[in-house]
Structures are given as C-alpha cells and as structure tokens.
C-alpha cells in the first residue's frame, strides 16, 4: 500500500529505502513551492530542495526505527528546509550543492523550468523582508503550518512568530500599496 502523509513515518521506520521515494513524492510540491519563495531563483529552489531531501535521508539512516516512527515528518522537513535556505543565503556565490558533489552537475537541458511569474514576483517581494519575517510568513501562509509548529521549527516563542508574521504581512502590504499608488 502506498504510504500517505499519515503513515509515512511508520513506513520509513519499517523499510527506509522503500518508503523514501514516497516521502519525496508526498512532499516535493509543497517543499518546492515554499522554498521557491525563500531563494532567489527557480534553479536555486531545485538545488535547495534536492539538498533537503538528501539531508533528510542521511538523518533517517542514522536513526533507529523508533525514532523514525515517532517523527513528525512535515515540521521536520521544514526545519531542514529553512536551515538549508538560510545557509545558502549566507554563503556567497555559487557553490556546488551536496547533491552535485555526490552525483555531478545537472545537465542544463535535463529540466526546463516552467516560469511561474506569480511565484517569481512574490519571491522578489518576500526577499525584501527580514529573514525571520519571511520564514514565518512563508511557513504560515504559503506552506500552511500552525503557529506552534513554526515556533518549533524556527526555535522562537509563538508570540515572536506571530509578531514576525504580522510585521512581514505589513511590509508586504506597504510594498503593494506603493506600487498601486
């Protein structure tokens, strides 16, 4: 039976290599959409997401069955994702990603990114926010995580996360109003 979001943790605990492709299938759309709004370009998002899944797999291999079975998969993936986005933003310039180091640089003809102009625009706007505000807004409104889940992911109190979101949305509103004036 194909694992669902509800059963994936148990499936990962039972047979990691069989379940892992399903983990990717279940979360790649959500991760890609959210990550795309936190990094400068489509190809950055692609690289970042590949690294997120690789790190996830590497963690899972180091864990026992019990730890895998009790994992809250979604917030855990987003914790890896936000850390990876932040670290990529810190390192200046284009460095080969973990995945590229392991299996080589991607053939540019392999994936033709379909431009999603709306996403590109929003990514540009969100880039103007502070890192905590952007992360909180994306996790809350693009991804749809709960405040308590976000608080755990970014390791900030719930009240602070709420304030981050509020500040972020306010800034976005100002930006949109300036454009429409």
């Amino acid at each position, binding site marked *: 039976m194909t694992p669902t979001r509800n059963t994936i943790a148990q499936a990962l605990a039972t047979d990691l290599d069989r379940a892992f492709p399903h983990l990717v299938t279940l979360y*790649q759309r959500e991760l*890609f*959409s959210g990550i795309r709004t936190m990094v400068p370009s489509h190809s950055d998002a692609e690289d970042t997401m*590949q690294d997120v*899944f*690789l790190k996830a797999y590497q963690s899972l291999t180091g864990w026992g069955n019990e730890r895998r079975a009790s994992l809250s998969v979604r917030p855990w993936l987003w914790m890896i994702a936000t850390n990876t986005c932040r670290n990529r933003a810190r390192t200046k310039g284009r460095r080969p990603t973990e995945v590229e180091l392991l*299996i080589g640089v991607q053939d540019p003809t392999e*994936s033709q990114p379909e431009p999603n102009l709306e996403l590109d625009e929003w990514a540009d706007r969100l880039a103007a926010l502070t890192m905590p505000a952007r992360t909180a807004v994306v996790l809350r409104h693009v991804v749809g995580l709960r405040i308590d889940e976000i608080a755990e992911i970014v390791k900030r109190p719930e009240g602070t996360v709420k304030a981050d979101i509020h500040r972020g949305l306010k800034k976005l509103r100002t930006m949109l109003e300036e454009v429409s004036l």
Partner: protein
Amino acid sequence: MTSLITNQLENLQTDAPPATIERVLVSTGVIDYFAPMSWKHGTLWVSWNGHGVSCVAPGDDPEPFIDRHAAKVGRHVARSRGVPLRLRDLISQTISSGRLGTLRVDLRGVGPFQLDVLTTIQDIPPGELRTYAWVAEHMGRPRAVRAVGSALNRNPVPILIPCHRVGTSDGSVGNYAFGATMKRTLLADEGLDMQTLDGYVAAGFRFMGSVNNTVYCFPSCVRARSIHPTNRVMFKSHDAASDAGYRPCTVCTPHGSPS
C-alpha cells in the same frame, strides 16, 4: 488588503521539476543512474550514485549492462544523459593509472568475503598477474581458491577493481567475465608482455629467479622484469625454487602469505 495577500500566498503552489525525485534518489543511493562513456576499447557502461560507481561493463548496447546491473546490484537504475564530467575524468584516470585513487566505488551490496577479495586485489600493481591461490593465501583462507575465483567473477566494478590481474596457478590469465581476450588486452595495456608470458606458461614456468640474489618472483613482478636476461632462472614450482636455495620475493610474495 491583508487577506488578499494571504490568499495569494496560499495559492502559490507549483510542481517540483520532474527530475527531482530521480536526482534525490540517486544522491542518496536508493537508485542508480547509468550512461555510456567512451574508453580505449569502445563503449564503457557505467552506473553510479551518491556512494560512488556501482557497476561497470564494456559493450555496445545498454541491455546487457542493465541485466548485469540487475544481477549484481539489484537496485532500480535510471538512464542519465551522460556520465558527469568529473566522474568521467576520475574513471579515465583510474583506468590509465590502474589504481582507484580518489574514485569512489559503491560496494554496499557486496558480502564480507567478496569485499575482502576485492580489497586484497587492489594492491596488485598494474601490469602484474597474480593467481587465485595467491589471493586466497593472502586473505588467510588458503583453501578458498574457488570461492576467490567466483568472488572475482562477481566483481561489480571490473577494470576499476582489477580482477583482470588474477589468473590461474599455471601462470595463464584464466577466465574473465568479458572473455579472456579482453583480460589479455587490459593486461597488455598496463604493460605486461603477453607473448613472453605465454611462452612461460607453455614451458610450465611459473616463477622467475635471479642468480644474483637467489630470490624468485612471479614473472610479471616488477623485480622479475628488471632481472637481466642472462641472470634469469625459471622454476616450475615453489619446491623447485626453494630446493635450488631461492627464497620468495618480498614484493610479489609468490608463496602467497604476506611477509
């Protein structure tokens, strides 16, 4: 205005690029990529993942390679556009130098005995020929000669891990997964004089000694090859050599056990 923004944010969903799952699974080593590359003798099929090169075979068509990969590795394998440049360079380097160097190989599916065999033979220098019995002796498993032979036959990464440098006890090259001719070609590429070797085998000569230092070697040992022709003496067995007062070379250790 704020609810307009949050509504728009909530609708920012887009599909991940199609290659995502494949690249992720290859980097984690759950599946492999494969592709052909050219080498000295035509086309070499290579599969790899984040752990290294997992399977190699020469040949014109992909089908035999896919079958071979299925038998030796057993993971799902996806066709890639080509072997990544860096990996291609490392493989070419390994083939031309005869040593793995920094090239990584994925031997996760290999059992402990076979792993021991494959590790042992990596120390055989390019252009030199040892025997199955020598490998068995070296591993401290002198009676496992046949098991060594079958472990080498199942080598998932031939050419890179040099099972072509191990032959039968009479000094001939023996069998090879890709035919004895390919095995001879690979050894000749590495500088082994096949004609001379054939001559020794035909005459029943298995070892070569030097009258100067009374040391005997495998004829392909770097030391044996440096013995001046007038100082050479040939032996048909260990006993013949030791009866003549010769001791085994410490470099090629023709008696098998590590010094």
